[in-house]
């Protein structure tokens, strides 16, 4: 069993759930001041690595597969020696067998850049009953993921958009960066209309190298335009994961009496009797969800419909678990 095989085996035995709590790493800033961070959740999820589905191009060595050859312990391929190659990398055993000079190449492991695109439009403020606001769910999700990423040596960046991108943190893997990250998240105030599509196009253009893009939004925008933005990201070879945040009431529409609905984004008002329009609303929301999911699948993006009544830890664990490479892969 080679080193790559051992790592794969180790990974496979590190995935059982629930993960036993382990002590927090030394880099963790005190999380207690942020209501969207839970140290218990962080410690439980810390055992699960965050994997990219595509090869990443990082600037330092890391845990993620790179499209380039490098100096990891995992054998990649043989290639013929050409003048100028480092003779130290000649495989003398192969020379002895074949009387030809071969250079032995290894996989390069690099770090991962993750971008969190968080929708801060007014609709993210909606919360029904005892559930969290969607923005709060987004904060918990982004903060926890960022913590885990930095914890495993990857860098995390943040773009917050309402009508346009109004807050942006470039990706960094420094533990101190997390403090800024959390501060920005804590100051997010949902307002205005959704500018998610423009924000995604901007991110696609801005992020030069391959990255893992987390889109955390209710996606209340034109599904067609959203699909185009995903295509743009995919074209730039980014790994995209979409977390579609919805409030349960936005799906079930379980109102029982007339309401005056005030739009959280542009203050449009409409008085409606839910009894009369429930069927049509249900039809519309189903069409919307189906369209969005189709758009995501078209670009091989991870699509997760998440309702705000769910436990975000569970959502994250499922996400991380499904991203683990299968045994023997890589």
């Amino acid at each position, binding site marked *: 069993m080679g080193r790559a095989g051992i790592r794969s085996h180790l990974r496979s035995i590190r995935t059982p759930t629930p993960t036993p709590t382990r002590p927090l790493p030394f880099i963790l800033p005190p999380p207690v001041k942020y209501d969207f961070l839970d140290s218990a959740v962080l410690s439980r999820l810390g055992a699960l690595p965050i994997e990219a589905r595509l090869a990443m191009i990082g600037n330092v060595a890391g845990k993620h597969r790179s499209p380039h050859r490098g100096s990891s312990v995992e054998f990649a391929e043989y290639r013929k020696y050409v003048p100028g190659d480092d003779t130290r990398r000649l495989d003398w055993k192969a020379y002895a067998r074949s009387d030809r000079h071969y250079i032995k190449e290894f996989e390069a492991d690099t770090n991962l850049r993750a971008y969190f695109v968080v929708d801060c439009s*007014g*609709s*993210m*403020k*909606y919360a029904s009953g005892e559930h969290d606001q*969607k923005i709060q769910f987004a904060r918990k999700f982004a903060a926890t993921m960022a913590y885990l990423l930095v914890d495993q040596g990857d860098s995390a960046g943040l773009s917050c958009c309402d009508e346009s991108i109004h807050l942006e943190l470039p990706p960094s893997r420094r533990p101190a960066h997390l403090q800024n990250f959390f501060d920005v998240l804590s100051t997010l105030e949902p307002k205005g209309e959704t500018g998610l599509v423009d924000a995604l196009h901007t991110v696609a253009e801005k992020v030069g190298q391959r990255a893992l893009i987390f889109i955390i939004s*209710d996606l*209340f925008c034109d599904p067609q335009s959203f699909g185009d933005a995903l295509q743009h990201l995919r074209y730039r070879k980014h790994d995209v994961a979409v977390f579609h945040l*919805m*409030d349960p009431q*936005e*799906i*079930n529409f379980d*109102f029982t*009496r*007339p*309401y*005056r*609905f*005030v*739009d*959280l*984004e542009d203050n*449009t008002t*409409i*008085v*409606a*009797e839910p*009894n*009369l*329009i*429930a*069927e*049509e*609303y*249900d*039809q*519309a*929301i*189903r*069409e*919307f*969800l*189906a369209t969005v*999911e189709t758009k995501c699948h078209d670009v091989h993006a991870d*699509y*997760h*419909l*998440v*309702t705000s009544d*769910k436990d975000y830890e*569970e*959502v994250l664990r*499922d*996400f991380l678990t499904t991203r683990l490479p299968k045994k023997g892969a890589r």
Partner: protein
Amino acid sequence: MTFLQQTMLWGLFAVSIPVIIHLLNRRRFRTVEWGAMQFLLKATRESRGKKRLKHILILLMRSLAIAALIFAIARPLVGGFLGWGGGSVETVILILDRSSSMERSEKDIQLSKRTSVLERVTEAMAELGEARLVLIDSATGIAQEVPSPDVLPELSFTAPTDSAADIPGMLVSALDYIQEAKPGRSEIWVASDLQREDWALDDSRWDAFRANLDELDFNVKLRVLALNGRERNDFAIRVLSSRREAGEFVLDLELAREQDTGPTTKAVTISHLGARSATQVSFNGQSQRFQKRIPLEGAPGAGHGWVSIPDNANSRNNVSYYAYGKEAPVHAYLVTENATSSDALEALTKGLAPGFANQEVTVRQPSQAHQINFDSASLIVWKAPLPKPPVSNQLFEFVEKGGVTLFFPPEEDSDASFGGISWDPITQSPPDKFFIVDDWDHADGAFRDALGGAPLPLERIRAIKRRGLVGDFISLARWDDEEPLLARRVIGQGQVLFLSTLPDYTWSNFERTALHLVLLQRSFDDGNRRLGAGFFGVAGEDSAIPQGDEIRDRVDSYAEGDAGNVAYEAGVYRFGERTVAVNRPVGEDSIEMLTTAQLDAALLDTDYSLLEDKSSSSESFFSEAWRAFLIAMLLFLIIEALLCLQPKRVDTSTAPSPEPTS
């Protein structure tokens, strides 16, 4: 529809509760900040139309359910007679047709129309609670309050009669009562078989009734219960006329039936002075006229009797009564001018007195006409220029009292007229041509068909001379150029006849056809009826009422009379010295019924309601219908529940379930 608990109808305002709740709910909305507005707008746009209609239907069902409940609580009475729009009634004025035609029953064991209507009125009054009942019956025409509706069938004022019904008169009486007594919210119930004779559509009182009804200060509802069913075939017998004739008493009888069901025989019983005899009469068609001759040898005095048939649909028209006085010659006067030819004179004289023992004729010159005993004359034949005053006045008075005068064309021209009719100059037929008879009245007049139905041979009459007529008359027979052969003018109770040619070979071949004999004898009979009219009366009319100190005494043996209704019952009565056979009015045997259109015309703009009861069943006018309304309420609620049910959301599209994935 009438409601026993009418005050509960105020609860109908509760029908608006669902709508009010709906409107309040719409106004009492809550405000919620909402993110997924784009779907809400789309759903709102698409939900118009069908959904709105459904929602309106739901509201409607709720309102109808409440209305049905209120109606059920108000205890509605349904029945075509009371119909919709009824309410609490303080006074019911019952106009009861108790004429003889109301005694029909459509089945052997069924009650008569009058009885069934009385029972149902009794039940209806019980349902109406404290409403007063005022009865106006067709016999007396007097409005009288009935203390308790329960005794209604027992009252003499509701018993059967043989008299006619004067419906417009009773309606006017009802209005008079209402105007005088001011009985509050009233309804006039007319119970009648809609016999057209009783309704007298041409009567001017209809206009007065409609006008007075319209002018009343309070609302009076008019309801007509039409008992116009005629399921059974009814037979009726009637004495048309009676006379002494050569030692015999001749009865002209008519047997009639409503529906011609083919040849049949009917047993006719004649009771003459207590002696009964029966005979079978073959019967074909709708009516059959026949004669019965009763020998009177050795019985020169007065007499009476009745003719009857077995009981059938209506028991009141199965008998007809007759009476006659002592034997006395009947007298005719022939007033003729000198210029009358001997042939014409002989033909007329023989025609008037063909040898019958009791017929006498006296010939007079026009100058001696004032010597005529008009009181004893049955017929006056005037073959002379038309009379002038004072004779013409005497003659006119004679006709008015029921006498018959037959004018033949004089030889001399005259400018005199009688009854507005005068002779034209004599006209001759063209050479080698004759005046021939074109058509005549087969049912009426002196040239009517014989009793057996055989027509008279008037087409054989040829005339070469005639006189035309000027004036207002009815042609009973016409020449082929439409000039009258026989003209009639009715004056008072009698009539004057004008024959435009003479039974003389220089005028016509009347004498050869012997039709002048028919004309003279039938005119004689008509005139003679004036003298015999004193022996006949019509139930309910003046002729059936004792005069002065006369005491009424029923002498026939057909049936026991009802002491309370004796004035309106047919029978043979002795009024002091007089004997009068009282029969039902001719109109009561009429089968002509009022149509709905005619009823509408008669009660124009009166907003009356009509219940046609063709079966004369004894079912109540109405019944309580609260169960139906409760069932209706349940139905409305079930429909409302079905409409409220949200259809199962079956995902037939490719859309994924909105269940979140994680």
